């Protein structure tokens, strides 16, 4: 158990709280041109005399500040990060090498296509890989991340339905969906109709049939869903939707469980997005921008965002699409992420991609099997790439999901996703991904079992956690009710 008090670090002050008047981190030669009067140039209302409280610090202060912060940070390069639904798989360093090749890194989106052939070829080939994985006809690489991919997909749904004579009014979404699904529909001016999943955690065809009519533009489905379960009725559900002229949107957030094994395009899917920052191992959040390519079936190809990369007469070209929904991102999207995803796909190969899906599924089932005797498991499994446990057994000792998550930090892990999906009270959603070894999974399971034992024998140890982090339990309630959004000098 990691309870060494020396592990506790002092809280790092802000740069604004450091330094001393007149201290500098640079030394510039005297100006050899006359000083300009900013107020005369830009007007007094746009300029100010001084900035109160601006930090005056040396280079070493700044270097130490950020180095200390980086040592308090937790990332997938430090340890297991089983954040369910987020797919925090390892980002291979080979991807970083490829993205930093100067021929890629120094290219500019406005340089002529004649001298951008390498990068355009990479984008074209990545699109082909995504088409092969998904079974879709064409893919746009433009969208900046998954949620923008959803918006792009729903805009194409709208364009398709409008061209048929009626954009329609509603979109059907199951109650297990990510919150981004209803948000994307609302942005496209669709009314969201929530469908209930049954006790099995799956969307039943009769529930879809009960809500499906000629005013439904599309159904959005995540598969595997957020309970980590494969929506096995997808073919039948797609038939019900298609029979009344609706389209099927496949939220590819969990494609990492199916990649190389099953193709959504062969199961009645008309539009889908990919999360390259999940499935294809490109970094998340602060580690780099996301990337959310969108694939479509043949009838929607004409509506794809413009432009698109094509291959004609031995050369790669950037072409406009006249009936497109328009641009959704400047130039060609987050090209740096396309390079990383392409490197990942090539490094693994077709069989390797399928293996990564199989290992992700195996790892989640392994953890579920090792933990379901001490934690309540609402879905007994087998599951896909993630498993859900709850705090029901620990509630008897006054221990809740939040406490279990906080205590895991003392054991050296990033906590899993908690209180999601909303259909499972007190959910702990664990996604180990394919990246973790058997030893790491065993160590994590041992820690989870130790916490379950603590919850029974010494619940204060769990409800008071964490003890080994730079700061103790944060007051999330006051932070949300009375947030301090700006630092001010004392």
């Amino acid at each position, binding site marked *: 158990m990691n309870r060494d008090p020396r592990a506790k670090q002092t809280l790092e002050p802000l740069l604004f709280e450091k330094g001393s008047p007149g201290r500098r981190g640079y030394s510039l030669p005297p100006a050899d041109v006359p000083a300009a009067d900013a107020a005369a140039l830009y007007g007094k209302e746009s300029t100010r005399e001084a900035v109160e409280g601006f930090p005056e610090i040396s280079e070493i202060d700044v270097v130490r500040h950020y180095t200390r912060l980086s040592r308090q940070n937790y990332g997938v390069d430090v340890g297991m990060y089983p954040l369910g639904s987020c797919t925090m798989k390892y980002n291979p360093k080979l991807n970083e090498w490829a993205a930093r090749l100067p021929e890629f890194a120094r290219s500019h989106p406005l340089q002529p296509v004649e001298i951008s052939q390498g990068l355009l070829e990479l984008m074209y080939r990545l699109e082909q890989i995504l088409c092969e994985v998904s079974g879709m006809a064409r893919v746009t690489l433009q969208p900046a991340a998954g949620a923008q991919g959803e918006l792009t997909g729903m805009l194409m749904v709208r364009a398709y339905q409008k061209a048929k004579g009626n954009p329609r009014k509603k979109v059907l979404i199951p109650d297990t969906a990510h919150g981004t699904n209803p948000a994307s529909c609302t942005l496209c001016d669709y009314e969201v109709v929530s469908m209930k999943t049954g*006790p099995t955690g799956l969307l039943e065809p009769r529930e879809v049939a009960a809500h499906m009519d000629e005013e439904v533009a599309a159904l959005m489905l995540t598969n595997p869903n957020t309970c980590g379960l494969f929506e096995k009725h997808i073919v039948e559900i797609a038939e019900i939707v298609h029979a009344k002229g609706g389209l099927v949107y496949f939220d590819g957030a969990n494609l990492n469980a199916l990649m190389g094994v099953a193709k959504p395009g062969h199961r009645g899917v008309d539009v889908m997005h990919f999360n390259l920052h999940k499935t294809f191992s490109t970094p998340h959040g602060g580690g780099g921008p996301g990337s959310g390519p969108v694939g479509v079936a043949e009838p929607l190809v004409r509506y794809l965002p413009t432009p698109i990369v094509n291959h004609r007469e031995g050369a790669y070209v950037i072409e406009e699409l006249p009936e497109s929904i328009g641009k959704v991102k400047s130039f060609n999207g987050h090209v740096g992420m396309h390079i990383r995803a392409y490197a990942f796909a090539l490094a693994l190969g077709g069989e390797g991609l399928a293996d990564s899906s199989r290992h992700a599924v195996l790892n989640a089932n392994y953890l579920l099997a090792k933990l379901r005797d001490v934690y309540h498991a*609402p879905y007994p499994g087998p599951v896909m790439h993630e498993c859900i446990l709850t705090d029901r057994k620990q509630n008897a000792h006054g221990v809740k999901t*939040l406490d279990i998550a906080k205590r895991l930090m003392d054991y050296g892990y990033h906590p899993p996703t908690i*209180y999601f999906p909303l259909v*499972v*009270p007190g959910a702990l959603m664990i996604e180990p991904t394919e990246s973790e070894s058997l030893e790491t999974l065993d160590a994590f399971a041992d820690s989870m079992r130790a916490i379950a034992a603590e919850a029974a024998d010494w619940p204060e140890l769990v409800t008071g956690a964490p003890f080994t982090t730079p700061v103790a339990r944060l007051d999330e309630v006051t932070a*949300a009710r009375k947030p301090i959004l700006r630092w001010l000098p004392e």
Partner: protein
Amino acid sequence: MEFPEDLKYTKQHEWARPADGRVTVGITDYAQDSLGELVYVELPEVGSEVSKEDTFGVVESVKAVSDLFAPVSGSVVEVNTALVESPEMLNSDPYGDGWLIVVDPSDVAELDDMMDAKEYADFVEAEKKG
């Protein structure tokens, strides 16, 4: 957990208290306990219309954001604006100071489909068992 006898209940865990031709609406003790500490409330304007089973507002806790569903149709005649500053009243007194809105109902008979305290208590027990 307390479910007062004089209230009617929805499956989405709102309560309704009819009195003097008006209906006061709030969330149940079970709802506030499941959501955890509430940090934000969004309520309709006085004078706006609500429809039975449609959303009329949002509550947000540190765990989740949740829609509020109207138990009856009608126009909103009062809103508990004190909740904006003090959403914690939803946790401390869900049936009293934590009330959400008062509705002038267009059809009081809509209340008849709602659960009474005993039915709601059974519903909550079933939901807890999953």
